[in-house]
Each structure stands twice: as C-alpha cells, then as structure tokens.
C-alpha cells in the first residue's frame, strides 16, 4: 500500500505541480493561498526550477505568458481579487494559445471582501473571465487528494489543448490538511514546436493574440478556438455521482460545498430520505448532459453553493424542467449548513 | 571631381519622408516629380558627380530603402 502523508491543500497542489514537471512559478502574495508561493520558493530551486515573486498579479501572469511561450510548464496561483488582475494575461494567453495552470483559491468578495473561502468566482472562471470569446478549462477539486491529482491533469490538459487551465479551489480546501498519496507523473509528454526558442534552422515564428490582417483573420482564430472548445466539451467532462440512481432529490455541488452536501446526503439516507449528490469536477466543460440525464426522472434538484447561485445557472440550463430546480447557498465566506440542507430537502417531501 | 559612389534608391519602399534629402551633406538629393505606386514622391540624385558615398541618406532612412554602391 502506498504511503499516505498529511499535507495542507495548498502545499499538496504545489508538490503535485512539481511532480507534473512544473519548472517555473510566478506569483504575488495573497491570502488564503500564501502557502503555494512559499512552497515553490523552497522546492523549485531544489529541482532546478525557477521561483520568482512578481511585483503584481499583472506582472506574474505576464511572466507566466513569457515562460509558457518559451516552452516551460509554468504555474501561478492567487485568490479572488488577484484573479481579477490576472484576467488580462489569461485573455492574452487564451488568444495566443499558450498553456498554463492557474490556481484560484477563492475568497469572498466583491472587492477586497474577506479571507474566508468562497465560491463566488464561478462566473469569472467558467465564462472566460477576461475580454473576448474564450474559455479556460476549470477543474474543481473536492479534497486534498483530488487537489493534487487534478493538478497533474491540469498540466496535461493545458499542453494537450494549448489552453490556460484553472484549478478552482477555495480557502477552506487550500488551508485544510488531509492525508493523501502523492500522485505519480502522468508520463505524458507534449511536443511544443510552436515555442519561441530562436529562429535557428527554421523560419522566424511569433506568438500573439492579435490578428489585424488579412480580413477575417481574427474570426478565423476565434473559430479555431471554438473548435478546440468543442473537442474539450466532448472529451474532458469529469463528474462524480454519489447515490444518484434511486434518489428522489439530487444535490448538485462542487468543492467544499460538495463535502457538506455529501454529509447531508448520508444523514438524509439515515432518515430514510433518498437523496443523492452529483459533483462536477470540471466546471468548464460543465457536465450538462450527465446532469440532464440523471435529473430527468428525479423529483427535485438542489444546487448547493458558497455563492448567490452561480453554478446554479448552469444547473438550470441543463435541466429540462426548471420548476424542480432549487437553490441553497451561503455568501461572503459563510459555509452551507448540513442541517439547513436537510431541512430544505425534507420540505420537498 | 568624380563621384565615389551612388545611392541606390528603392522607390517602392520609400514613404517620401525626406530625411535623406535633409541630411545629405552635398545637397545632391531632391524629391522626384513622379510618384511610386503608393502615390509617394521619392528622392532622386540630381548630381551624379558629387556623391561621396558617405551613407548619411541611408543611415537616416526609416524604410531601409537606400543602399550605397561605392565605386
């Protein structure tokens, strides 16, 4: 049996990134993700990598862009207000087809908000976030083991599709310590002939999001991006179902909210109420089809979130019968309560 | 005095800024009467005997439209 070790979520994510071959990290301090840059600052030099504390989130994501264009596996991490600043570079990288991994260990907003964990950046993460018609892949780990495992996957998906990948955690997950088995490298390698390495024995090449000429060049780039997004939607959805088959009510939740929802399902079952939980691990692409199929014959669907109902909109879009979809959420860093979920589900009986 | 060289002017690259003319120490460049395909006038040599091949015109040219042949 493989050895389990106790690690904080933020540390586990950083170690997993190094296992995945992340050689460069650029970041700027912000709570509640400060363990991530601290871990990289210590560990990356030990493995021949580069850690650099940037002068701002704007600079950090631009450094990520430069390193990615140079062909490296590169990562940054931040929390909500910092993520807003990083949208500039993320949009450029989406347009320039540059891979990278960005962790947003969310905290409550708007503005400076607070430092407690939250899920209020779902819209920002799953709707592109910056200017332009683009998407990023958004992974939603629910525990420390998954945070590490999905970090390995994040680097592979980024390189496979040449796309920024967001690990959307929250402050509770980042700060939580749990036993985990450190993941193994996936073993996958990706050629990067597009990288900016010097025009030796080949024509010069450049990486840019801008397309001014010829006419329609920008539409062409956008169509290429959309085609990539279509392939991702078809192939990369990950979701987990817990006791959904015979459930009358299906809860839909991700991340920390899903841990609480899961507990509510267990307690409801103890009381003879058939509840289940559908937990998306990819928020984009969102498991709309799976959700539609699973919930079609259910009496009720309840979205549980640490937001005012952001993923809830995707749940509504996916379900044919909107009337049976309900929402329960807590805002500004507050946690959903198991008892309140149970009460709500019981009210459907 | 025999010329030491001559400017070879690629009139199609020229945008007609005139920096070459203004910087020619011998004042032997002038704007053409005709236009290139962009509708721009370009420098021409008005005295083939005097060019010293100093490269001042080429040095100032933002379009790299002038090369110098040294005799």
């Amino acid at each position, binding site marked *: 049996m493989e050895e389990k070790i106790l690690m904080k979520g933020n540390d586990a994510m950083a170690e997993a990134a190094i296992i995945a071959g992340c*050689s*460069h990290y*650029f970041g700027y301090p912000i709570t509640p993700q400060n363990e991530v840059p601290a871990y990289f600052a210590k560990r990356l030099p030990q493995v021949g990598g*580069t850690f*650099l504390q*940037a*002068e*701002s989130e*704007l*600079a950090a994501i*631009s*450094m*990520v*862009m*430069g*390193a*990615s*264009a*140079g062909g*490296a596996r*590169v990562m940054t991490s931040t929390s909500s207000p910092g993520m807003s600043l990083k949208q*500039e*570079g993320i949009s*450029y990288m989406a347009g*320039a087809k540059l891979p990278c991994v960005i962790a947003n260990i969310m905290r409550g907003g708007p503005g400076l908000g607070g430092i407690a964990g939250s899920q209020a950046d779902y819209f920002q993460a799953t709707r592109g976030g910056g200017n332009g018609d683009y998407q990023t892949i958004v992974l939603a780990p629910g525990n420390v083991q998954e945070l590490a495992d999905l970090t390995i996957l994040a680097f592979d998906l980024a390189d496979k599709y040449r796309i920024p990948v967001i690990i959307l955690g929250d402050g509770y997950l980042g700060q939580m310590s749990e036993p985990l088995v450190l993941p193994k490298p996936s073993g996958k390698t990706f050629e990067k002939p597009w990288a*900016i*390495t*010097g*025009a*030796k*024995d080949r024509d*010069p*090449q*450049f*990486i*840019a*999001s*801008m397309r001014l000429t010829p006419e329609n060049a920008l539409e062409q780039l956008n169509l290429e991006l959309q085609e990539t997004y279509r392939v991702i939607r078809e192939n990369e959805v990950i979701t987990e179902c817990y006791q959904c088959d015979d459930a009358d009510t299906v809860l839909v939740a991700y991340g920390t909210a899903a841990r609480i929802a899961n507990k509510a399902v267990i307690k409801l079952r103890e009381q003879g109420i058939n509840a289940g939980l559908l937990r998306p691990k990819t928020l984009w692409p969102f498991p709309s089809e799976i959700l539609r199929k699973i919930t079609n014959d259910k009496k009720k669907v309840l979205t549980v979130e640490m937001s005012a109902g952001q993923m809830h909109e995707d749940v509504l879009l996916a379900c044919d019968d909107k009337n049976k979809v309900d929402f329960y959420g807590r805002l500004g860093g507050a946690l959903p309560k198991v008892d309140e979920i149970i009460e709500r589900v019981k009210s459907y009986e | 005095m025999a010329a030491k*060289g001559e400017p070879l002017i690629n009139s199609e*690259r020229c945008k*007609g*800024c*005139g*920096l070459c003319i*203004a*910087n020619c120490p011998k004042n032997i460049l002038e704007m053409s009467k005709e236009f290139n395909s962009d509708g721009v006038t370009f420098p021409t040599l008005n005295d083939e005997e005097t060019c010293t*091949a100093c*490269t*001042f015109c*080429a*040095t*100032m*040219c*933002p*379009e*790299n439209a002038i*090369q110098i*042949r*040294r*005799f």
Partner: protein
Amino acid sequence: MSKMTYAFPQSLSETRTHYCAGCGHGIVHKLIAQVLDELNIREKTLLVAPVGCSVLAYKYLNVDGLEAAHGRAPAVATGLKRVQKDKIVLSYQGDGDLLAIGAGETIHAANRGEDITVIFLNNAIYGMTGGQMAPTTMEGQKTLTSPQGRDIADVGSAMRACELIDTLEAPYYIERCSVHDVKNVNRTKNAIKRAIKYQVEGRGYSFVEILSMCPTNWGLDPVKSAKWIEEDMVPYYPLKKFRDKGEEA
C-alpha cells in the same frame, strides 16, 4: 570594382512597415537588425513586442517574437528569459507602454537586474491611438488629451526614464540616445550594440532610451520633427550614458 555598403540587414524582414513617413521606429528597427547581424545572434534573439505603434515589431525583424499586454513587456521578457536562458531577449517599448501603464514592470525588471535588454522609444506621445498625452509629453506640448498644452501644475512634468532607472542598483547599462540626425543615429546604434553585447555576456539588465520622431502626431513634417527633437527634447532629455558597469570595471 564597386562594392555595396549599407546593404539590407539579414535580420530585417523585407515586409514594409506600417509606420508613418519619417517615423523613428523604422530607423531603430534597422539599427537593431544591423546589430543582430554584426553580433551574429539573429538565430538566438527573441523579441517581445509591446502594445503601441510597434505592436507588430516581430513582423519586421527576422527573429522569433512574442506579444505582451500593454506595459507588460518586461514581465513577459522576464518569464521568457528565465526559460530560454541562453537566448537574447529584447523588450521593445514605447513611452506610454514603458512609463505609464507599465511603470511597475519597467522599474521592477530593472531593479531585479533581469538579464534582458529594453529598447525604449520615446516620442513624447501615444502614436497608435492617435496622439494622446504620454508620460514623456513635453511641458506645453499639445496633444489630443492636452489640447491647451501639457500643464505641469495639473498633470505633472515629463518623466525621465533613464534618470529613474539610474537610481536603482542592479542595471548594468543605461544610455539615452536620439535618431534625429546622422551622428545620433550612429551613436544609437553603438548604444544598442553595447547593450545587447552585455546581454550576450550575461551581464544583466541594459536599457537604451531613444528620442524619436512622430511627425504625424506632432503635426510636423519629418525634417521639422527631427529639428524639434534637437531643439525641444534634447535640452530636457540629455543625451548621455548614465551608467556603464562594463566601462567602470
């Protein structure tokens, strides 16, 4: 027997630029190309282009190129250089890019002594967007957004990049040049060459500011623009070598 001098540099693309007649960008691109040829480093040079008139600079030089968001070229160059350590990374920037939106990136890349070369073209105005006031716009200079002339009591005086960077410990080489006449174009080329040579030798951060004509947005013809640099800009922006640790050594 005749011999061609001032031949077309190999490192310069034959693509015609989109720059206006008399714009200094073309001169500076040409000088960079000549330097890359002379140092024989075209194949290992990576150009980071800014947002501004020189946003397409990577199309005009025969080198690998990368786009940066407005003001972020030094940060992008930092990331690139820290991956491609044996390559020559140039950050080519204008005044709005380098001193307004990118002031933070400029100062911090310089302060780290990042092993890159920043080529800063100062034409005292935003060119690409049609002539707005820049951090380097001269006192009294009229622009779209300073229609009565720059009022320094209201918006502050023109910023001097070399002097700012010269307050930092790390930079290896800092020089201000101009392209308004032949002597100064040649001096600019020497400065670019020295700055890039220092990067080839791994000496650290080098910075070359170049005063340059923007005839279109200054509302002057190219020859008068060159004169304006000489008479109005140079007294405020002294042309000199601020620092050369290679010479001090």
